[in-house]
């Protein structure tokens, strides 16, 4: 398989935040000016063009208030609005990520040193929730492979396990009599999935530091898998030989597989996965229900990894 090399973006080409936030109005004014003058204003949007087609989309970006106000993060409560409302006490600094297991060079990373050492890119990805809704989110982050390469996985390492922080004093969903899931939340990837160039550790959205409700200070984004694979507020990463347990798979194995690849042909036991509701479009009427794409539209990039697998069995 050819290794994908993300294009290098010189800092001179990175769009300032104010311009970036206004790019829709730039595009609109470009359209208003007509085709003859289109080329000049589009040049201001150079960064998007430079990120390549795998990492962006021409689908409209989901509004900021929806991306940061409609979240599944049970550590802060079960309702979609709970994470935004109940994550105010959460303190994502200081923060360390412990990386150990089958590696030559186990390390504990300080989040700020880690971010400073990485080239933070923007990746505009579709995000498909297992609950049959979807968003388009501009993430900031860096490939997970960049971190894994620093710890040098041993040849015996086949999987990567992740753990979310446990802080009942700061996370109301983790305290009290009623506990929906066993903590910590756990997730896992096969090593080739973890090393895939589309797999990122995200540290921001919309050019801003990652809000608490989205998994501050660092969360996983695997755009061809259902959203629950995108474990949030990561404190521990362990390289393993065996497939690690993942929270939803353990909780309801008939409903949530370890792989959880977006697949319109494998229904959830309770609903079809053939279509999805795109969040933040059209409100009550004219809501946007669209066909779900195989591997969430990233089949060209990732289908090779599953060439010999029965995706109905390994869902």
């Amino acid at each position, binding site marked *: 398989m050819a290794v994908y090399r993300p294009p290098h973006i010189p800092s001179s080409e990175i769009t300032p935040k104010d311009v970036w936030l206004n790019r829709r109005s730039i595009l609109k004014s470009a359209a208003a000016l007509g085709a003859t003058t289109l080329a000049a204003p589009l040049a201001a949007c150079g960064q998007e063009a430079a990120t390549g087609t795998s990492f962006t989309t021409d689908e409209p970006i989901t509004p900021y208030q929806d991306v940061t106000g409609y979240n599944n993060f*049970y550590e802060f409560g079960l309702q*979609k609005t709970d994470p935004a409302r109940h994550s105010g006490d959460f303190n994502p600094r200081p923060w360390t990520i412990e990386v150990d297991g089958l590696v030559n060079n186990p390390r504990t990373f300080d989040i700020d040193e880690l971010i400073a050492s990485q080239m933070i890119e923007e990746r505009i990805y579709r995000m498909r929730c297992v609950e049959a809704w979807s968003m388009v989110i501009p993430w900031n982050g860096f490939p997970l492979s960049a971190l894994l390469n620093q710890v040098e996985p041993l040849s015996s390492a086949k999987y990567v396990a992740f753990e979310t922080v446990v802080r009942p004093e700061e996370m109301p969903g983790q305290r009290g009599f009623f506990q929906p899931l066993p903590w910590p939340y756990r997730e896992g990837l096969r090593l080739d999935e973890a090393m895939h160039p589309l797999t990122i550790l995200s540290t921001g959205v919309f050019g801003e530091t990652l809000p608490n409700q989205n998994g501050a200070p660092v969360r996983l984004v695997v755009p061809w898998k259902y959203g629950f694979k995108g474990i949030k507020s990561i404190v521990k990463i362990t390289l393993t030989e065996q497939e690690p347990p993942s929270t939803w798979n353990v909780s309801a194995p008939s409903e949530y597989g370890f792989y959880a690849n977006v697949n319109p042909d494998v229904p959830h036991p*309770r*609903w*079809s996965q*053939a*279509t999805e509701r795109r969040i933040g479009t059209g409100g009550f009427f004219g809501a946007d229900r669209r066909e779900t794409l195989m591997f969430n539209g990233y089949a060209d990039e990732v289908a090779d990894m599953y060439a010999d697998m029965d995706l109905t069995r390994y869902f």
Partner: protein
Amino acid sequence: MSVSSTVNSAVRKIPAWPLYILGLIPAVWGFYLGATNQLGTDPVKTFEIFLGLWAIRFLLLTLAVTPLRDLAGVNLIKYRRALGLLVFWYVLFHFLVWLILDQQLMMAQAIDDITKRPFIMLGMAALILLIPLALTSFNFAIRKLRKNWNKLHKLIYAISILAAIHLFMATKVLDAEQYIYLALFVVLLGYRIAREPILQAKRAA
């Protein structure tokens, strides 16, 4: 004067018809909020769940009428028809919002869901079973069907079981409200099994 006789004399003065209007206020209000984009990020899902939960609430109230009369001497039987019809209306709205606003009339997929996914099948079965009950809720039908009317309307127990399982299956993790409603279903349906012995004991006392 005891609480039950106070309630009963109030019931004599308050007619049942305003309940039909009051009961529909949540649906109208929810629809207004949704149509004016005030139902948050996922208004269709929010409204769909809202209607389903109100159907459950009215169903529980319908089931509570008999035990309240048996055990507390409070007679709300006069409102039971309105409560039952509200269950039917809310289940129907819940289904229509799912079919029209949520599934956007993608019929192939909707039929696939109805025929293959137990969760949706159960809800659909409950709606279908409610139809004969709604159609025979008029005085004329009650007179015409006589004893058979009572037999037919025992379907509400089957509907309740379907509704309870549908509610149980609706979410990945149950919240406090779901636990409360499920407990009420168990108590109110369980009462029907224990009813004869309880009434006999009461008569003997």
